[in-house]
Each structure stands twice: as C-alpha cells, then as structure tokens.
C-alpha cells in the first residue's frame, strides 16, 4: 500500500511538472524571463549545458494506427540542479537555448518546497492565463467560420 501511495504521489508530481513544462513551452522566452525576474532565484548550476538538436516527429497511420516518421523538428534542451539538490529539465521546440534553460530552472523550482509557490504564482499562473486566452481567441476565430446549414423550402410544398 505504501508503495502504491508513493507511486501515486510521484505520478501526481510528474503530472504537475508536465503541466508547468507545457505552459512554458508555449510561452515566449522574453515573457518567461521577465516574470522570473520578479522572483528571488535559487542558486543553481548547469547539469546539462543548453544544446540544440532534433527530434523525429511521429504520426500514426490513419491518425490512430501504427506510428510512422513524419519529419524532424528542432529542439533545445537543458538541465539544471539547484544547490538544494532538485534537478530540473527543460525541453522546447525551436533553437532557443535560453528558453530551454529557463524551463529547466522553473522545473527545478516547482519541485522545491521553498520556491514552488512563488514560481507558480508569479511565473506560471500569468503565462497559463495568457496561453488560455490566446487559445480561446483562436478558437473563437475558427468558430466564426463554422457552417450553419439550413434547408431552403422550395416550390409549393
């Protein structure tokens, strides 16, 4: 039972980290850096110097079948370690090493009892709000182009 609980705890923490990473990957570097500038940053070191590379993007046959290789995408990645031991990982599409490093730093901070609340409130929450707003705007623009079919009554019935 104890094992199960710790597993559930870990996957819960993982889900939270993934949600934070998703928000950050969708945000602009300048916005992340600007908001992080308002938070007291922990002492940290590079565990993996930021580097650029590729990932092969996979699709599925028919959308839901066997995987196939669609084409590559550029990716930047980094890893940092706080002086208190938390290790954070940063991955993002594109070639912005600074962004990967900032994501890694945020990922480390959300794992730290000392910094989690501040980074969530000052950095992630406003970025999440902006991301949702942007998605809603695009969804509303698409929705305006939805076809409303109606039937014309023709002739004399």
């Amino acid at each position: 039972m104890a094992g199960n609980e710790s597993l559930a705890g870990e996957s819960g923490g993982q889900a939270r980290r993934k949600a934070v990473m998703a928000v950050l990957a969708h945000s602009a570097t300048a916005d992340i850096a600007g908001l992080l500038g308002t938070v007291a940053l922990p002492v940290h070191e590079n565990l993996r110097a930021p580097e650029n590379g590729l990932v092969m993007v996979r699709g599925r046959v028919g959308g839901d079948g066997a995987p196939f290789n669609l084409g590559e995408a550029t990716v930047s990645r980094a890893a940092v370690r706080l002086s208190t031991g938390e290790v954070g990982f940063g991955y993002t599409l594109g070639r912005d090493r600074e962004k990967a490093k900032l994501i890694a730093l945020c990922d480390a901070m959300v794992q730290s009892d000392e910094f989690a609340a501040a980074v969530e409130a000052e950095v992630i929450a406003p970025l999440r709000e902006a991301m949702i707003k942007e998605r809603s705007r695009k969804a509303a623009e698409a929705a305006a182009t939805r076809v409303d079919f109606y039937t014309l009554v023709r002739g004399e019935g």
Partner: protein
Amino acid sequence: MYVAVKGGERAIENAHRLLAHERRGDRDIPELSLAQISEQLSLGVDRVMTEGSLYDRELAALAIKQARGDLIEAIFLVRAFRATLPRFGATEPVDTGAMQVRRRISSTFKDIPGGQILGPTFDYTHRLLDPQLADGAAPDAPATGEASTGATPRVTDILGRDGLIEPSPPAEADVPVGDLTREPLSFPADRDLRLQNLARADEGFLLALGYSSQRGYGRNHPFAGEIRFGEVEVEFMAEDAGFAVPLGSVALTECQMVNQFKGSATQAPCFTRGYGLAFGQSERKTMSMALVDRTLRARELGEEVIAPAQDEEFVMSHSDNVQATGFVEHLKLPHYVDFQSELGLLRKLRKEFAEANEVPPMQEAAE
C-alpha cells in the same frame, strides 16, 4: 567521369558575389525580414518545412530568403542543415484527434460533431486579383464566434464505430518504425516508410500522381472524408527526466480519404482509406498524399498494379525533389571528358557510315 579542372575559383567567387547582389535586388527597396516571410508567406514556409522534413519556421524563412524564393532550393538548404544537428530521439506519436482545430471539413457528412469549420481558406474565393492588397490596405479583424466545448472526433472514427470503414493498421509492439533517413530504401516498402517518403515528397509530383489516379490510372473513387488543420501537442520521452515531456505544439494538416470497398467471403465489405499528414497548412499536399497512399496499397488490397501511381518503386524513387534536382541539375557540371569520348565515338560512327554508303568524302571536297 569527372576530372578536377582548375581555374574557375575566381569566376565562382564573383558569381556568388553577384548572386548575393541580385538576391538583395534594388537596394532602395526595404529588405525582407525573416519574420515577414514567416508571417506573410506562411504557406511557402509550410511547404519548405514539410518537404525539407524539418519543423522550424525561422529556418525555413531563412532558406526561402537565401534561395530567392526558389522553394526547392530552400528545401535543399533545410535538408542540408538538418544534417548538422544531433538527433535526440523520436517523439511520442502525435494525437491529431486532440488537435486545436483551425479548419475542419468533411465532404462525406454534412452534420459532424464539432461542425464544418472553414477556417482560413482560399476555397470559395473568386480568384480575382485584389488591387487593395497591392496598396497595402489593413484587413478587417477576424470575426469571432462561440467556440463549442465539445470534441471534434475524426470522421473516420465515426465511420469506424459501425464497421463501415477498415480500421487503421494497429501498432505492433516489437516492430521498429522504419526511417528512410537512416536506412536506404528497399522494395517492397512497408506503409510506414511509404508515408514517410510521401510526407517529404514533392507536392507537384504527388499532385500529378493523385490527379492521374482520379483520371483513371489506378482509379479508386475517393471522397475527402475529412481535412483538418490546427495545432497538435508534441511530447518527447526524455530519458533524463524519466517521463514524456511536452515540447510545445506544431501546426499540422491531416487528410483522410475514404475509398471504395474491399471485402471477402469472410469479411463484410467496407470502405478503404488513404492518409495524408504534413507540417503547417498544406492541404493540397495532404490530399495528394492521401490519394497516393491509397493507390500504393494496391498490392496489399489485391488490386491489379497497372498505373504509375500504384507502383511503389516508381513513386518512392522519384518523389524526392532534392534527389531529383541533384540528378537533373548535375548535368550542368563539367562533363568535358565524358563528352570528348562520346564525340570520338560519334566521329568514328559517322566515318563508318560514310564508308558504308560509299560517298568518298575527299572527292566531294575536291568538287
């Protein structure tokens, strides 16, 4: 045969300098920025990403600028660039069913859950040149509507529930995904390799092949079951983090073609399918890809292979515009020695011909 010939260095250097000058054009005209190309020539960027087989808008925009708008040259540049970076691995397969849809239409069902969403499309425009655009008039802000909170399931999933359409081939756990960037092509090729080849194939080539299949060269009665375009989230299994990390989203276009039936004594007839997927908003490309994906399934579905679009070796060996360009354009390179040997042979043949026809050349010359 190729022989190194010295002496062209200065000419080449000056030719490249002249190219850079011509690329810039009239220096009184403002220079294009990459952001302008990416934002305002976005479908060109999408094509370069798709056929360059690299999702990176900024790099594709740079390639278009450097190539002076020659998209095949730009695709070549992008392909060459990708060889300079290490590959971290492959992403988790993307879920197009969870796409944030910007456009989604079906020509098979009028009423589909989520609706018919036209999005930003050239369809239904009158194809009249717009003088206002030449003057740089600012367009109206887009209209907004109430977005539905419901899902937009794939049309093929809806048909699949009733068994009216064949299911997608399932993933097999122990079968690695074929990658033609790592292993040379061999035939017969499985569908994963075929789709990878078609995804990076020249749009014009696929368009012509798809068209030929509609006109009767390997005909298979297609319907555009669904076309969708929008943002799809990408995740990557990061070994260091120990879980699949989100990377952000990519814009994708997906086309599901629904085609005529297959069936057997043991299996009820059902629709068959062709599939197209590409980076960005690439509708003509994905439609053509889906048509050709279906024609290339002739062998699997027991259809007679009679047309070029059904011949996987023909299609896959000639679909790549970088390879095709390389072989066609290499004809421009010096072939002086080759040509000398052909010239020698031709002179010999002509001499033999003249002798056989008993026309004494010296006598002719004397008259």
